[in-house]
């Protein structure tokens, strides 16, 4: 069994293993086929059952799942002709935040997102998806480029947060994030935001100001990680499950509060079970919302974007 299986996914993985074993045997023993079908439906029922009543803390684990699709997986499946663009033109290129131009059904778009990396080597290179200030400044540069060439901006949020380190503080992590918030609030391009995995703190929000904010069904979004909230408020980091619950980090709660506008449904068992299906779901959301936003003039768009923010917590 893969090590990339969450505790509550184990019963599902066991059935999957049986199916795999039977499938191997079935080539010589066709009489096994009905049994395979039976197990498959058993697996589907079990997955549905387990996933229909995930606790908030379990959702956090799905959002952080080691197999969860990341920004580059989505880019590959949703867009054509992606040209990655690098660097903030001031200090460095931050690989924890990727961006570039591509086509969405023929329409030029700017894509910007956190990228956690897949294997150990890549994770280290990408700093586990936790940007330094230069990452946010690259994002800002790309947003302004999109504005210059009149293309929509699509952002994918998936980060535990901005990287807390000495160099980041020296280079102005706070300013980099603050500047993005200001720039995004007045950017003349349409901005579509998709929270795909973990939306952690200011480091997530720095890509999060837009005209439409969607979240994947098992994505999370919060002011701090449940662990950080637990250690600050409860003063015990093992209260993270309680903190996740209390902060209402899950998609349906966030929609109720008006933080997100749309929940993008994931395949049964989570996005990591089927990259193509979740990518298709995201793509249709993007196309639908871009068409919707085209009804507004630039001025109306900016007014709407501002009003959307003013309502929150008023």
């Amino acid at each position: 069994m893969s090590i990339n299986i969450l505790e509550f996914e184990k019963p599902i993985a066991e059935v999957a293993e049986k199916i795999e074993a039977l499938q191997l045997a079935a080539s010589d023993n066709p009489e096994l086929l009905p049994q395979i079908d039976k197990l498959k439906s058993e697996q589907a029922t079990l997955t549905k059952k387990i996933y229909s009543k995930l606790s908030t803390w379990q959702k956090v684990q799905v959002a952080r799942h080691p197999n969860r699709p990341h920004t580059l997986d989505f880019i590959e499946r949703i867009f054509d002709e992606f040209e990655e663009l690098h660097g903030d033109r001031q200090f460095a290129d931050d690989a924890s935040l990727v961006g570039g131009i591509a086509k969405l059904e023929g329409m030029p778009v700017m894509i910007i997102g956190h990228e956690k990396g897949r294997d150990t080597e890549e994770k280290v290179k990408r700093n586990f998806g936790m940007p330094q200030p230069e990452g946010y400044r690259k994002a800002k540069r790309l947003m302004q480029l999109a504005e210059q060439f009149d293309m929509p901006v699509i952002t994918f949020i998936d980060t535990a947060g901005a990287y807390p380190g000495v160099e980041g503080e020296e280079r102005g992590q706070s300013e980099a994030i603050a500047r993005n918030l200001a720039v995004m609030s007045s950017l003349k391009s349409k901005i579509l935001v998709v929270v795909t995995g973990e939306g952690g703190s200011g480091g997530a929000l720095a890509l999060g100001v837009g005209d439409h904010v969607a979240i994947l069904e098992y994505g999370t979004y919060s002011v701090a990680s449940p662990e950080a909230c637990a250690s600050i408020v409860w003063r015990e980091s093992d209260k993270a499950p309680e903190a996740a619950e209390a902060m209402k980090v899950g998609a349906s709660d966030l929609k109720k509060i008006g933080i997100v506008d749309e929940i993008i449904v994931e395949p049964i068992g989570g996005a990591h079970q089927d990259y193509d299906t979740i990518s298709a779901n995201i793509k249709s959301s993007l196309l639908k919302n871009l068409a919707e936003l085209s009804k507004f003039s630039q001025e109306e768009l900016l007014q709407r974007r501002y009003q959307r923010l003013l309502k929150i917590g008023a």
Partner: protein
Amino acid sequence: MNWLTRLIPSIGSNRDSESSKSKVPDGLWNNCPACEAILYQPELEKSLFVCPKCDHHLRIGARTRMSIFFDGGSFQELATKITTKDILKFKDTKSYSQRIKEAVSSTGEEEAIVIGKGKLEGAEIVAAAFEFRYMGGSMGGAVGTKFVQGVDAAIEHKTPLICFSTSGGARMQESMVSLMQMAKTSAALEKLKESKLPYISVMIDPIYGGVSASIAMLGDINIAEPKALVGFAGRRVIEQTVRVDLPEGFQKSEFLLEHGAIDMIVHRRDLRAKVSSILSKLYPTQ
């Protein structure tokens, strides 16, 4: 005292300089938190709560801040009667609504920020000041809303805006509602910019997280009081993550100046004159 114990609302709210008065029965004597010199309260008031022995800038409340900054008697409070909403029905060891009640009764403030208009050397201004004693000056929906109303007032009266920030950051008990106040206040400041009105950010010890990464860092001019701690991540978080000893003076005003984050460090007694001088150049029309 580390950043965390200072910033945790439950234990941080009564650990600033104002509480050390309680050690002294007659209320006339105070201890400097930096050099521990015994300070005579009436003298301290005259020195604007700066220790005459070591120049330490003691923490002061939002209203004291306003009264020493504005021309005498010109301060008029704005953006009042905005109440805190417990949207998440948040409860940890205590309920958020209970924490709000306690913060209101211990500070006499309705929230962690005070907004007002008045005069600085005769010129009309709007100012905002965080109240650190109110849940560590943390920013929730009500703080964001009050700040936006301050921006709106500056635009309406065509005045500059000055904000004195001192805050532990976003307010955990409002989670995403709180986080979004960073975007809301930053967006409002863009409106101020469109109106060509100056925004002066004055950084007061300490500022972290969500307030650092929005209101505090977005000044057209960024000023800090001496030795103020300002950063995105708290010192303990950084130490635990990178496992290094932090350099001397890390995240202090002098460090910020050296790394290009602020324009200047200004002593509290010079603040009025300095801000007035800056505004007379950025916004001479008054």
